[in-house]
């Protein structure tokens, strides 16, 4: 029944006090900060009850003073726990694209404009359970990185994030939900396979497609995340700090068309996208000029990081946009 109520977006928005996703920096007003006692808080309350009964029974005035001071401490603890979260400003940063199967790195910027520090603030991604605990120094912006597993290609929105704190006494738990507008582009999971033969309509059609890729070592370039570990120049790594990748000259000067329609008919569309993504990586790595042809659009042959990103984005969003 509750669940049914929450299916209604407007009701949910009213309940949580915001409309998702939220654009721009979000400042947590106290209406959005919820607070309840923790189990320790209840235990503390029970302790106070015993102290009170003891004070009454023995007519201990200093016992009353102690009990009430501790009660006041609980009250102050509640206020301070709220304060540790309230008026915190949250904004989302850019999340670099990842491949399906990897974890998207969502960046949240927690801006503590107060003059006091806010220790032990937990940011927890509700859907995945990704979480990080931060101590926020006064007057500074701290970065929280949430590693959210990206299972499928396309846009991965950052859904609800819970911010929670139990500081200072652990007797109360204050929490708040934010849903900043942030999304991460998820490329299809690349499938490693041999590059296709250069197509007849390329200018350099004479290249030997079978030999593309791994034969003639031509030099080193900076390592990129998607490089195969087999190509890492481990000896060079041992000498220097940077990861270097062995580059092969086999495909230099070759122009390839990576074509959706020329893939085997037995592959479904996700498999095709994976195969194409793997080819994009392979072709870029091989130093080839390559173009991408999808049912709905085509990207002219080129090379370089921007071109590779454009191709992968087209693959990621195929059939979505």
């Amino acid at each position: 029944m509750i669940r049914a109520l929450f299916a209604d977006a407007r009701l949910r928005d009213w309940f949580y006090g915001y409309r998702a996703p939220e654009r721009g920096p979000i400042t947590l007003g106290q209406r959005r900060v919820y607070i309840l006692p923790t189990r320790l808080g209840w235990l503390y309350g029970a302790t106070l009850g015993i102290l009170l009964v003891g004070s009454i029974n023995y007519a201990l005035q200093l016992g009353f003073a102690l009990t009430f001071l501790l009660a006041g401490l609980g009250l102050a603890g509640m206020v301070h726990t709220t304060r540790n979260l309230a008026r915190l400003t949250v904004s989302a940063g850019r999340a670099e694209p990842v491949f399906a199967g990897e974890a998207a790195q969502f960046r949240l910027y927690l801006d503590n404009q107060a003059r006091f520090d806010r220790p032990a603030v937990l940011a927890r991604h509700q859907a995945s359970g990704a979480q990080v605990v931060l101590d926020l120094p006064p007057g500074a912006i701290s970065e929280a990185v949430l590693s959210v597993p990206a299972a499928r290609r396309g846009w991965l929105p950052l859904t609800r994030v819970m911010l929670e704190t139990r500081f200072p006494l652990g007797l109360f738990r204050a929490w708040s939900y934010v849903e900043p507008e942030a999304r991460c582009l998820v490329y299809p999971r690349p499938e490693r396979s041999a590059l296709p033969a250069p197509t007849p309509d390329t200018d350099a059609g004479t290249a030997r497609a079978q030999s593309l890729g791994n034969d003639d070592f031509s030099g080193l370039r900076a390592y990129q995340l998607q490089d195969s570990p087999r190509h890492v120049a481990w000896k060079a790594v041992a000498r220097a700090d940077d990861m270097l990748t062995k580059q092969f000259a086999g495909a230099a000067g070759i122009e390839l068309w990576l074509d959706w329609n020329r893939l085997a008919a037995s592959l479904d569309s996700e498999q095709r996208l994976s195969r194409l993504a793997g080819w994009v990586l392979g072709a870029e790595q091989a130093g080839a000029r390559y173009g991408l042809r999808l049912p709905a659009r085509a990207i002219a042959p080129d090379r370089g990081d921007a071109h590779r990103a454009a191709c992968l984005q087209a693959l990621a969003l195929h059939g979505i946009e």
Partner: protein
Amino acid sequence: MTTPHPLAPEQRAITPRDLAGLLASLVLVAAPHALRMPWWLTLVVLGLYAWRAHIALERSTLPSRWLVLGLALFAIGAVYLEYRTLFGRTSGIVLLVLFSGLKLVEMRTHRDAAVVAFLCYFLVMTNLLYTQSMPTALLMALALLVVTGTLVGLSAPRRPVSANLRSAGMLLAHAVPAALILFLLFPRVQGPLWGLPQDAYAGMTGLSDTMSPGNLSQLAQSDAIAFRAEFEGEPPPPRDRYWRGPVLWDFDGRTWRMGPGWLQKFEAPQGSGRYDYVVTLEPHNRTWMFALESVARLPVRGRYTSDGMVVAAAPVRSRLRYDAASLARAAPEPFERPASLRRALAVPEGGNARARALAAEWRRSAPSEPQLLLHAVEFFRSANLGYTLEPPLLGRDTVDEFLFDTREGFCEHFASAFVFLMRAAGVPARVVTGYQGGEVNYVDRIISVRQSDAHAWAEVHLPGRGWVRVDPTAAAVPGRVDAGLARSVRAGDPVPLLMRPRLEWLRGLRSNWEALAHRWNVWVLGYGVDRQRDLMSRIGMRDADWRQLTAAMASILGVFTLLLLAWSLRRLARPDPVQRAWQAFCRKLGARGVARAPNEGPNDYAERAAQRLPQAAAAIRAIAALYIGARYGRAAARERIAELARRVRDLQLA
């Protein structure tokens, strides 16, 4: 959703730092108990603490649950062996202290550590069962700070200890107003909710309902305060300060007892030399309330007995404050019940033959009872009896042995012998115990009466005059009532340290301290049903019952919490002074019809405003320049900000 919650206290293992904080807290709260516990149990507790510290330092594993359970059973057995009970006050507390060590040994997580911290709060309370003095309160306040700092450290493990202690101090400071509201308004009830452990009032000292040779001199070696009295105007001279306590009628040859007594309607006597005063009586677990002889106004809760005692309805188990008045020279009250007079003539059969002979001799030679009395007083004055806090032990004939053999005694010997002689001579007499004297504190003029002022004297019933006080000790040792105990007893007697005449400077220090302690007693520890009613009627809540008090308490507390919340959030909402000044400037201009457009820069806005309000153009431009300098320039100097604020304030647009 199955990932462990990093803030959940069950998840986080404790660090050596948490442990150090807890050990410091435990040492602070358990140290006063350690002094009261048998030494071997103290060693067990210290051993447990040291064991846990060792485990943390060596990173070794905690003992198994079975071992801890075995140790717990051992602790229970040990406490039972020592105290023969588990449920007394002292044994229960000792058990709690032992368990604090055991809990430490099995402590793994933040949650366990928090439980130990709560236990520390509880142990603070148990200390207050023994003493509520100011030094205890200060020590416990320090303990609260350390425990709270440790608790804060549990929630913020990466924060420096100093910052956590500062947070704890701030939290406690914020707790004080709420504590004050609760303390003043929480409805007080009289008396215990249920029966207390048997030993709950152990250690309260005071006069008992019997008197035998040696028990008063024992009491007089303590300089604990029995009660304090605050006089309106000058207090009476020391010789008139007879604080009446239990009246003893029945003698068995060794011990004087009160015997049965009757309550009687109090009728104020006539007379002169009236003193009005307030007594703050320390708890002594007996019903008597002390007042100067003769009582002229009965305390509110006091009742009056037929032999002139003031008693409370129940044993005095918490500090009691009452108003009283007395007359130094009350008119005689000659009537006494014949049955009482017969009782005041009874002497045990046989024994004390020499005293009986002396009494018979007086009877023969004195024509009247006042004459006889003079004989007796003269006898005590000239008999060269010694006054000592360490009287020799007496055999069967206590009166004879004191008067004729040992010739040394304390006031109970004098009073006992005197009353015996009077009764043997046929004059009705009785023993009165109480306190005599008391020391005026030169700081607050309050008289402190100590156990060392315990005294016993006699009353004889003379026809036509009623009961008359006779102090045989004063007759034998005239200095006792004028100069006090210390100057009267033999040199070398175990007089309480501070009663010794040489230590005047120390007594000066003590006077200051006790004046402070008295305020503490009256205003903090004495805040009971009566004081609460007093305070409430003073702020306009006459006859407030618990419902009104609770309602007032809840609403004030709610308002306070909201204020605290608003205060802590307002500090966040307040923009910096530069922004504040600028906003004030925009408001001023807005009121004159020049509102700033949302996308308008400060320069454009000021220019537009200057054109619209030419008479203030220069001031407006200056403010805008200052604002831009402070806002976007290098770090703005403090004077520039102040100048900006001042110029905005002084800006005249009309």
